[in-house]
């Protein structure tokens, strides 16, 4: 049994502690927004915030998040109440297949928490671990810079009522 906060809600997960957090969140806790792309920390599709830091969860054992705060794409914002990053994603018409975008946005959220006004080079560096096979990188970069310039660089506060309850 591992206890942690998921999108602001206290959770106790029953999966074996060596199970990667990604699969615990997807299979046991039924939040499907975070994706499996490589299983080796190479593509970033599984990215979540762990205590505010963008982290590849396909290689992160459940035990590592004991008592920590985990935020997934569902916790960042919802279709009815999107986060400024998500709004910027729509404004720049970023997604194509969309499969990588949850991870892209969570990496961007981690960047803006640490560095509210990143340069273009800093965005590129922070996002280098997230693969987009559709090749949306230019729009992703523009969307991150737009979100950064729209006074969004506050800590991410999750309202658990808005998130699909695990």
């Amino acid at each position: 049994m591992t206890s942690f906060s998921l999108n602001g809600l206290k959770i106790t997960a029953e999966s074996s502690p060596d199970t990667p957090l990604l699969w615990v969140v997807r299979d046991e806790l039924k939040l499907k927004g975070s994706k499996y792309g490589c299983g080796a920390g190479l593509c970033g599709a599984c990215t979540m915030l762990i205590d505010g830091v963008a982290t590849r969860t396909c290689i992160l054992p459940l035990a590592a998040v004991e008592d920590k705060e985990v935020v997934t794409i569902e916790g960042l914002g919802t279709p009815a109440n999107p986060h400024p990053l998500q709004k910027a994603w729509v404004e720049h018409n970023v997604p194509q297949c969309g499969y990588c975008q949850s991870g892209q946005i969570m990496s961007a959220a981690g960047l803006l928490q640490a560095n509210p006004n990143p340069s273009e080079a800093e965005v590129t560096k922070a996002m280098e671990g997230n693969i987009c096979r559709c090749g949306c990188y230019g729009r992703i970069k523009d969307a991150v810079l737009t979100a950064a310039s729209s006074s969004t660089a506050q800590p991410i506060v999750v309202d658990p009522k808005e998130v699909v309850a695990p």
Partner: protein
Amino acid sequence: MSGVNLSRREFLRSSGVLGGGLVIGFGVTGCGSDPISPALEPLSNALTPNAFLQLTADNEFIFYCPRGEVGQGVTTALATLFGEELDVPPSHFVIREAGPHPDYGNPEFGGVQSVGGSTSVKAHYLPMRQVGADVRALILAAASKDLGIPAAELDTSDGFVSAAGEAYPYGRFIETAMNLPMPVDTPLTPSADFKYIGKSFPRVDALSKATGTAVYGIDVEVEGMEHAVVVRSPVARGSLLDFDETEALKAPGVRTVVRISNGVAVVADSFWHAKNAAPLIVANWDSPELAALDDVSLRAKYQNALDEVDGDSVHQYGELDTAWSETAQRISREYWAPYLAHAPLEPLNAIVHVKNNSAEVWAATQGPQLARRVVARTLDLEDSQVTFHSLQAGGSFGRRLVSSQVKEATEISRQTGTPIKLQWSREDDIRSGWFRPASLMRIEAGADEQGNLTAWIAKRVGGNAFAARFETALPGVLPKGVPDSVIDFVSGTAEWVFDGLRVDDTSIEGLGDDYVKAAQDIQHVTVADGLPLLFWRSVGHSYTAFAKESAIDELAHESAIDPVEFRLKNVGEDHRMRRVIEEAGEHYRSMQQDGASVGLAAHSSFHTRVAQVAAVSVEDGRIRVNRVVCVVDCGRAVNPDGVRAQMEGGIVFGLGAALYSNATLANGEIKESNFHDFQVARMGDAPDIEVIIIDSDEPPTGAGEPGVPPIAPAVANAIFAATGDRLRSLPLSTALRNSNVARASTDPSPGAVAERFA
């Protein structure tokens, strides 16, 4: 069709609401030949005028998109065409992926329900609009009747009928509409009056994809489902001799292990548990011929075929002897393009539940009708006994035309009796999939004193991805059904169907296009290695453009003529091609004047003309593409921002392959396994991209693929400008390393790469 016990749907069809042939260019539905798409969810109070729309009394517009969304934006594009004539904003539609049904046939593929070949907007430009116009006319007729106002005095806007200062939702008139005949051949909106076509607006799926709420195959759960991972032959098409599952069965969560036709399936309570147990299977495989191949012997084999085997002349014109006699400059150059995996970010998956005399399937494929047939054929069922739920895909790039994962899941579920969710790992995807064929090409070309092309002999050695394009392979196969041989191909069991095939037209497409010569001969030598082959975004053009546009550039330099001038001199009567080269050429010159090392390439594919200029720098052995200008003529751009996105995406996708991607062999096994060694473009590789769309009133042509082919030669030509080094082998990073111009030092182990990107 009998006259008793008709469902309402069938009644509507027979009473003319559907019209005889439904829609020009769509399907060839015979009366009662197939129940309407299972994707059309039963709705108690909705107008269902055809297979594409359900309109509810609450004015909800549910659009069943006939082509699968794999990221290319087809749902937005077709909703735009439909909405333009229906007078409903594209964003108002609730969009569903259409299940298999003849009404969703692709007119460009002989009515086969499949997405590919950059056909969707071209094929549906008129038919999809006609559906919308006819439905709008039906609503107007119903409104006229209900309101007692002549139809001529009614207008529409945004899904509302306006009359005498009042606005009424379309949904108000559905009861009356159900009993009216379906109008046909309603005049379409003149282009000058377009509200949506030609305007840029957000993708209909942008918000769901930005909030993690879009549902892909991997996200579907079914009551009682079990998870499976398949252990396949490490050398493609090896047969399983025997296996020992003892240790795997002891692993956590494992329920059972079953043998299927191409391997051993581990069935567990989760993907994680199945994936962990899979390596514990001890399996012995026989060794196909492919097991003897490695990279060195592969290249030697291709080189031998190029040098020693007479090619089949596929396309020939003019007198070569005469043409050579008028030649002042002559080159003979060889170009190599490797095997490539598609690597869509969502690895393949499918859920199949085999029941008594029926089956239910959830999968994202490029051809749901074909994939359903795969299941039916595997189980010896009729198509109608298989319920198929189509899902959008997390990328495809050609990969999901083959549905072997659906066949695998079917074989497993048949044995377990449970719903089986089969998930490929990334390693499965890179190592056990279908590949873009490798190609060795030689171009011998000549030009006269004035720089006019004289002779052009292009010879390609490699495998064939398919017997022919669908439209030539499948004439008139519907409504009788798709031939079993094609289903075997789609299920991944039937490369042998094409034994004896000398050349697939897609194998050499583009190799002799775009320029006029006095004489030309395109030759082909088929070399089959035993790796399964498949279309890969832009198909043959993905490698022929590299050879063609590199050779043209080389001949221009040998002739001491500016490469833009050289192309324009030889482009002939194709004024659209001329225009994109001219426009790109201006950028080429201005970027050159700014001191950049630039290269240009132009290539037409899928009826679309594209020219690209790349500016590169080469430092410390690393190729950096700084900027790309892309000029495209795809006829009328239905959604200009969608076209821009496809060009940007095509450039980045093509750039990753041009610079890094390589599927290589050792003892017949693919050496690469994940994104650390099968490298693709990352954000730092992506150049600034400017897309210029030629304004056009011509009917639209493809956009999904044509952005890919020019980027590799544009970059190679720019590297020549930067370094004086001609790189004639893809990927270019490897070619650069091998050319000793510079030396890269990257450690490609998974740990090192993961650490770099953590």
